Each structure stands twice: as C-alpha cells, then as structure tokens.
C-alpha cells in the first residue's frame, strides 16, 4: 500500500503546475548559486596568487577552499592574510569577494539555497497532504480500503520526498558536472566525498521540513490554516531561533569587545615603550613582556569567545537549521571549529616567527595549514549535528504519524 500511495503522490505531483513552478524555481536558484559562487571562488583564487607570501616572508595565508563554493561559512575570515612581526599579528583584508553585493545579502551558496529556499519548498510539498485529502473527500475514500494510517503516512512522505529529492539531486549533479568542465574546478576524492555527504545531509534537512509540513497538515482541517501555521514555524526555525541563540548567549557570557581589546593592547605597548625609553628595561625584554601579556590576553579572550560560541551553538541547535549549517560548513572546512583551529595554528606560527626574530633569523618557515580529515570533522561535532538532524526528522515524522492516526476523517 505504501508503494501505491507513494506512486500516486509522484504522479499527482508530476501532473501539477505547482510542482513544475517550484522545481523550476529551485533549479534556477541552484544553478545561479553554482555559477555565482564558482566565479567568486575563481576570483579569490586569482587574489591568492597575488597575495601569497614569497619565500621566507612571515605571513600566514591559506588558499581558497573549493568546497566554499557550496558552503561559504567563514571562508572570508579564514582566507585573510595574517602578517606576523614583533608587534604581533596584523590582519590584512586579503581575499575578499569580488562581488560587493555579497556585503548586502548573504552569499547565495548551496547551503543558503537549501537552508532557506528548499526548506520552504519542502514545506509546500507537505502543507496540504492530509488536510487537502480531507477537504476533497478522498481521505475517507482511501481509508475505506484496507489501508493503515501508517501506510498512508509512509506512502505520502515517500512519494513527496522522492518528488523533491530526485529533481534536487539531478539539478545538483548537473550543476557540478558543468562546473567540473572548467579547469579551475579542482576536486580531489576527499573533497568529493565531503560534497556527497553535504548533499546527503541536505536531503535529511529537507526531509524533516516535509515531515513538519505533514504533521501540521494532519493537525488542521483546512490547507490554508496549515500554510499559515507552517510559514510562522518556518520563519521561527530558519531565521528567528538561529539568531536568538547568539543574542541570549551574549547576555550570559562576558566577552570584551574588539575595541576594548585593542585599547588594552595599546596600553601594554605604551607602558613597555615608556619603560624602554626610560632605560628601566631593555628592548628585547620589553618585547618578551609584551608578547607574553598579549598572549595571555588573547588566550583569555579566545577562551571566553569559545564559551560564547559553544553556548550560542547549543541554543541555536533548538532549530535544525543551525545544526544543518554547522554540519555543512564543518564538512566543507569553512565552519567555526575549523576557523578556531586555523587561528590557533596562526598563533603558533606567530610564536615560531617571534623566536626566529629574537634569534636574528631573517628567513621564516612558510605557514601551512592542514584541514581536518573527515573522521575528525565528524568526531568534533559534525556527527552530533547530523544525528541531531536525523532526530528532528524522526521526531517530526512520528508527530505526524500520531496526528494522522488521531485525525478525524469524517
């Protein structure tokens, strides 16, 4: 029975204008995203060729990450160039997006399209699944047959999920195939397996919105009511909760502002320079003191900042959208954990450069950064976020099932 109902849903979708309009829109967005983000990536690659440090230069800068085409995350912050000297680390603008419009709107990457647009599309597939059948009288007709409500729910979910997933996978695969024709698209097997996993968790994410749509549809008697409720829930899950978490965490963890940090840094410098001028301290000792104090200050700042990030992430995880973004960006190597790891590597590099300078060496080792392996990404929280998405999926599906079982079909 599940197969019969799933087949009916697929045929029904294929025969409706709604399906074609929605799929056309989603396809257009995915293609546009790939086109825009790939061009942006190529621009940043060209930037990197210009700013990459020469031999022995004390600069930390990493090449653009090809997976940032799909999940840009913190890529811009990560690929800035960091100049190391006796006065510490100074950040340069580095590889910024050539597209100034990105400053006004979020980067239209694949994750954005899935997170915002396709989640809404999934809701549109689910919002009237039960209430429309009720309004049309076909629910009674279906359930007058030896069809269990579990089969009804499973068949409807499966049919609509396939109606959404198959065009999504086809369009995504086609987009990737077109990009791969360009010589600038360099994807090794490791990056490719991460991309496949990213697409897979996108499907899990879309599945949970479909389940949510069906759940609300089974709570209402009219499709219009279910649409209004779902639009409210969608904006809550996609926009409100992921932003509220950060605001709430800021109230709970005291992190000094960047301005205060710079002020403090300046004070340390002034104090030590005055001591040096007055002859109460030699220059080398002064630099050492400055370095040690700045390290302590930055360590303290980093610890507080990490606490803030952890708390924000946990609050934001009340919405599956946050888990999806965390999992997708960490998989792509543009996430918060990866960025923190890069920053710590840069600080270590600064220490090594500082030691070189103290020992009078002019040439410095080149900075290099190795992204975490897939296993490590999953162990560092990626697996938790993926599991959390699966939990949301199961939860919404079960709630939908219970609502369908209790639904008054009269």
């Amino acid at each position, binding site marked *: *029975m599940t197969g*019969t*109902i799933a087949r*009916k849903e697929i*045929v*029904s979708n294929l*025969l*409706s204008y709604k399906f074609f309009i929605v799929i056309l829109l989603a396809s257009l967005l995915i293609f546009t995203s790939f086109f825009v983000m790939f061009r942006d990536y190529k621009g940043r690659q060209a930037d990197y060729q210009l700013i990459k440090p020469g031999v022995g230069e004390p600069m930390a800068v990493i090449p653009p990450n090809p997976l940032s085409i799909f999940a840009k995350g913190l890529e811009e912050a990560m690929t800035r160039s960091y100049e190391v000297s006796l006065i510490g680390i100074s950040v340069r603008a580095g590889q910024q997006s050539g597209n100034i419009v990105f400053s006004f709107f979020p980067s239209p990457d694949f994750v954005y399209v899935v997170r915002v647009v396709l989640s809404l599309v999934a809701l549109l597939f689910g919002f009237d699944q039960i209430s429309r059948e009720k309004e*049309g*009288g*076909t629910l*009674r*007709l*279906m*359930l*007058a*047959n*030896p*069809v*269990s409500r579990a089969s009804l729910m499973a068949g409807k979910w499966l049919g609509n999920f396939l109606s959404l997933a198959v065009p999504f996978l086809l369009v995504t695969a086609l987009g990737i195939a077109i990009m791969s024709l360009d010589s600038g698209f360099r994807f090794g097997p490791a990056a490719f397996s991460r991309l496949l996993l990213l697409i897979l968790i996108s499907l899990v994410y879309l599945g949970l919105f479909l389940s949510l749509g069906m759940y609300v549809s089974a709570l209402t008697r009219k499709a219009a009511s279910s649409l209004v409720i779902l639009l409210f829930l969608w904006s809550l899950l996609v926009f409100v909760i992921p932003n509220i978490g950060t605001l709430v965490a800021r109230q709970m963890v005291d992190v000094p502002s960047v301005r205060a940090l710079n002020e403090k840094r300046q004070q340390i410098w002034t104090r030590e320079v005055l001591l040096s001028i007055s002859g109460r301290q030699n220059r080398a000792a002064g630099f050492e003191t400055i370095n040690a104090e700045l390290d302590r200050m930055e360590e303290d700042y980093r610890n507080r900042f990490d606490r803030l990030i952890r708390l924000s992430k946990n609050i934001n995880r009340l919405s599956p959208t946050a888990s999806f973004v965390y999992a997708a960006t960490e998989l792509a190597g543009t996430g918060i954990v990866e960025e923190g790891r890069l920053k710590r590597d840069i600080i270590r590099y600064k220490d090594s450069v500082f030691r070189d300078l103290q020992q009078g060496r002019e040439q410095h080792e080149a900075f290099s950064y190795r992204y975490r392996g897939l296993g490590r990404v999953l162990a560092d929280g990626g697996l938790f976020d993926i599991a959390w998405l699966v939990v949301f999926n199961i939860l919404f599906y079960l709630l939908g099932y219970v609502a369908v079982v209790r639904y*008054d*079909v*009269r």
Partner: protein
Amino acid sequence: MTEQQPILKADDLSKRYEDGVLALDHLNLDVRPGQVYCLLGANGAGKTTAINLFLNFIPPTTGTCTINGIDVTKDPLEAKKYVSFVSENVMLYGNFTARQNLDFFARLGGKANLTKENYYHVMRRVSLQEKAFEQRVKTFSKGMRQKLGISIAVIKDAPAILLDEPTSGLDPKAAEEFLEILAELRNEGKAILMSTHDIFRAKEIGDRVGIMKEGRLVMERTREELQYEDLVKIYIDYMRSEPLTA
C-alpha cells in the same frame, strides 16, 4: 432453503461524541447478500455516523459492527477488504483522469495488475461516457463523478457496499441511472447499505427501509410491507412526532 448470513451487521451499536451528543443509540441492523437497506432520516439522525462506524472512521461507544463476520474495531484492515464505499460528494483527484483514479483506488482495494480494458469495462458498465475515460476528473459534472465513484466500488468487487447519500445533488436522470446500477449490484448478490434523504428512491430500490431519528432506528419495513403502506406518510409522521429525548 437456509437463510444467508448477514454481510453487514450492527449489534447494539451506539456512539456518543466527546461533546456528549448521542449520535447513535443502540442500533441493530443487518444486511444480507442481495439486499439493499436504505436508512432514511433528517440531517443529524445518525445515518452517516452508522456508516462511519462500519468503516471504523470512529470507534463505537458500545456495541459492535461486523463486515462479513469480522469485527471492524478489532480487525479493521481485514474487514475493509470486504466493503466498498461511495460518499455523498465524490471529489476524487482532479488532476487524474477517470482511469487513473480508478487504477489508484483499485490498487488500494487489492486489485493490482488490471488492464486498461478492465477499467474501461467497469466505466462502461456504470454508463460513464467513453470520451470521459481519459479525461481529467476536474472537468466532470457531479453525476459523472458519482458514476466514477460507483465504478470504484464495482471494481473492488467487495461483497458489501456502503453508500452515504449518493444521489444527493444529482439530477433525476442521473439519480435514476445510479439506482439502475445499484439494482444490478444487488442482483449480483452484494449487500448494500445506503443512507439517503430521498424517500421515493428508498422505496424504489430498498429491500428494507429504516427510519432514523435522533440516533435511533425508529421504524423498519420490508419491501413487501411497504407495498401496502405509504412510506412518505410514515416518514413525515415520525419527523413530526415529539422529540425522543424530550
């Protein structure tokens, strides 16, 4: 000759809704193969509630109803193998053609692997116009949709058929055609339970006619008995009488 066992049977069947309304009050009825049982009554008399109980859309408060000897509350999926249902307003799937609708519901009813010709045969049998077979149902008139609805019941070939006010809103010609199909199904040995407001057609097609009022079956007559009685007068008398729960 031994009397055939009833296909549809309600035993002391009652339904009280959560808001306290007693929609069905100790209903006892049975429908045997080759019989049409017409349930007459005003809106809210309990006719549709009785059908909903037979289809296990709602659980009974007391009593049991069986289809082909199977308790619908205990084993609803098994019981539903033996019953077809035609509702008052057969909407079906507007984007599907008549054949696609028929195919879907036939599969739900357990009839897979039917050929196009099988579907056409059933639609011809219910007098649906040939050109409508491959037309989208959203272009159909109510009469055409009702014919398609009965063809869904026919193709399932279940021994019992439940009809919830199937002729309501049909023009006289379409209603007459509908009754002809019902008579054929009865002659094939189907047990048919039909709720209706239409006294004249109930008298015409019904082998037994029951009048319901405020959830109770207040009168039951056989076709033979009705030859000597005026069903319209009986019905109106019952409707005008004092409320039962006054």
